[in-house]
C-alpha cells in the first residue's frame, strides 16, 4: 500500500474537535435554557436549533454562504476585519461542521437537563449557592450523561460532515479537504486503496465514539438520577 497522505484525517480531527468544543460552549447553555425556561418564541428557537438535523447539508451550507459569503454583509465585515474572506478556509469548515453537528449535542443535553428534578437546584439555592455555582455543582453533575452522550454524537456527526463543509469551505487538498471529502475524491479518481484506507479510519474513529455512547447509555439504565 502506498504511504497514506494523513492530512485529511488530521484536518477532520481538528475540525470535528473544534466544532464540538464550540458546540459545548454555546450548546450547553442553550440546552439548559430550553429545559428550564418558558418564554415567548421558545418553540421557534427549538425548531431553529433542531432544523440542521433534518435539512440537507447542502442547504445548510448554502444558507451559510448567504450569511458569511463574500457577497454578504457579514462576509464583507469579516474580510475587512481580517484582510481575507472566511469562505474556503479551515475556519469555514469548522463553522459549517458546527452548525450541522451542534443540534445533536443540544438535543441530548436538553434531555439530560430535563431529567434533573429542579428541586435539587432549589435545595442548592437555599444552601446559599449562586446560580452559576448551582449549575456547575448540581445541574451539570446530574445531567452529565446527557451532556456526554450529546458531545459524543456531535463529534461523530462532525467527523462525517460532508455537504455543508463542501459548500462553505470547498474541497481544496491540503487546505480544506477533510477525510470524508478525500474519500469522495479518491473514489472519483479510481484510487480504491486510498478510498478504503480513509473509510476504515473514519469508521474506526466514529465507531469508537459510538461505542463510548452505548456504554454511557448502559450505565444510565442501571442507575438514574432523577426525581425520587
Amino acid at each position, binding site marked *: 500500500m502506498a504511504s497514506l497522505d494523513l492530512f485529511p484525517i488530521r484536518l477532520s480531527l481538528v475540525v470535528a474537535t473544534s466544532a464540538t468544543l464550540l458546540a459545548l460552549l454555546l450548546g450547553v447553555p442553550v440546552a439548559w435554557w430550553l429545559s428550564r425556561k418558558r418564554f415567548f418564541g421558545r418553540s421557534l428557537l427549538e425548531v431553529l436549533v433542531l432544523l440542521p438535523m433534518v435539512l440537507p447539508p447542502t442547504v445548510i451550507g448554502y444558507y451559510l454562504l448567504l450569511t458569511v459569503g463574500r457577497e454578504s454583509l457579514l462576509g464583507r465585515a469579516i474580510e475587512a476585519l481580517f484582510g481575507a474572506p472566511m469562505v474556503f478556509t479551515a475556519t469555514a469548515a469548522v463553522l459549517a461542521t458546527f452548525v450541522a453537528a451542534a443540534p445533536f449535542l443540544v438535543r441530548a443535553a436538553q434531555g439530560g437537563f430535563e431529567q434533573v*428534578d429542579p*428541586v*435539587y437546584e*432549589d*435545595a*442548592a*439555592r*437555599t*444552601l*446559599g*449557592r*449562586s446560580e452559576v*455555582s448551582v449549575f456547575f*455543582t*448540581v445541574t451539570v*453533575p*446530574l445531567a452529565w450523561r446527557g451532556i456526554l452522550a450529546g458531545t459524543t454524537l456531535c463529534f461523530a456527526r462532525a467527523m462525517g460532515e460532508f455537504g455543508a463543509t463542501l459548500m462553505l469551505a470547498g474541497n481544496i487538498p491540503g487546505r480544506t479537504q477533510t477525510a470524508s471529502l478525500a474519500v469522495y475524491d479518491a473514489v472519483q479518481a479510481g484510487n480504491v486503496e486510498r478510498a478504503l484506507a480513509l473509510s476504515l479510519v473514519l469508521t474506526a474513529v466514529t465507531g469508537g465514539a459510538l461505542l463510548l455512547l452505548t456504554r454511557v447509555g448502559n450505565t444510565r439504565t442501571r442507575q438514574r*438520577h432523577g*426525581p*425520587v
Partner: protein
Amino acid sequence: MRDASRTALSSTSGDGAGNPASTALNIGGALSVAIRREFPGYTLDVSFDATSGVTALLGPSGAGKTLTLRAIAGLLRPDGGRITLNNRVLFDATHHIDVPARDRRVGFVFQQYALFPHLTVAENIAYGLHGHQRAERAARVDAMLSLVGLIDLAARLPRALSGGQQQRVALARSLAPGPSLLLLDEPLAALDAPLRKRLGAELRALHDRTGVPMVLVTHDPAEATRIADSVVYIDAGSVRTQPAEDAPDDRHPSR
C-alpha cells in the same frame, strides 16, 4: 379578625420553646408573612406571624401551604406583600425588595428531602458551608452528623440510606449553615407511621436543642399539635382562624 387570629396563634404557644408567645405581637418579632400571588384560577393570600418556636401550617393538600413555604424561602416570588424575619425585610413588593434565596439564611427541608444523589452524606451537609475554611467546615459537618446521630454514615451516598436516615441528613444539611429559620415541607409524610411518631419527637427535640425557629407544613392535625407551639390553618389559599370544616365564611381579610 386579624388580631383574633394572632391571639389564637399565641395562646397555644409559649411552653417548651423557651420564648414567650407574646413576641408574636411585637412588630417584626421572628417571622411575619403577608403575601399575595395570583395563579390561573387560584389566589394565594396568606398572612400570619410566627414566634421563635415551632409553627405548623395546617391544611388540606392543595391549600397553598407549600407555596407559602417556597415564598418565605425565596423560591417563589409573590405578586404583592411583605415578608420579614427578625426585623430583616426578605420581601417587600412596594419597595421592590426581593432578597434572593441564597442570601435569606432560611433553611429548607423538602418533602422528598432532595439530597444531592451524587454527593455523600458528608458532602451533602458540607454543601452549604462553601464560605468556611476547610478545617472549620469539617468540624461543622462532624457536629451536624453527631447532632442527628449519623456519624457512621458520613461516606454513604443518599440512595444507600433508609427514609428516616435521609430525613436526618436533610435536617443536618439545612441546619449546617446556621439558618435564622428552618422551613420543613411535610417532613414526616414520606415515612411510615411508627417512624413518623419517633422522628416527630426527634424534630421537636432538635428544635429545643438548636433554638432555630421552625415552620413546618402538615395536613395531619394531630401531628401539628404534637410538634408545634402554634398552628396556622390554611385552606384554599387563605389563612383561617378555625379549622376549615366549621368555618364556612371565616376568611382572613386580605393582607
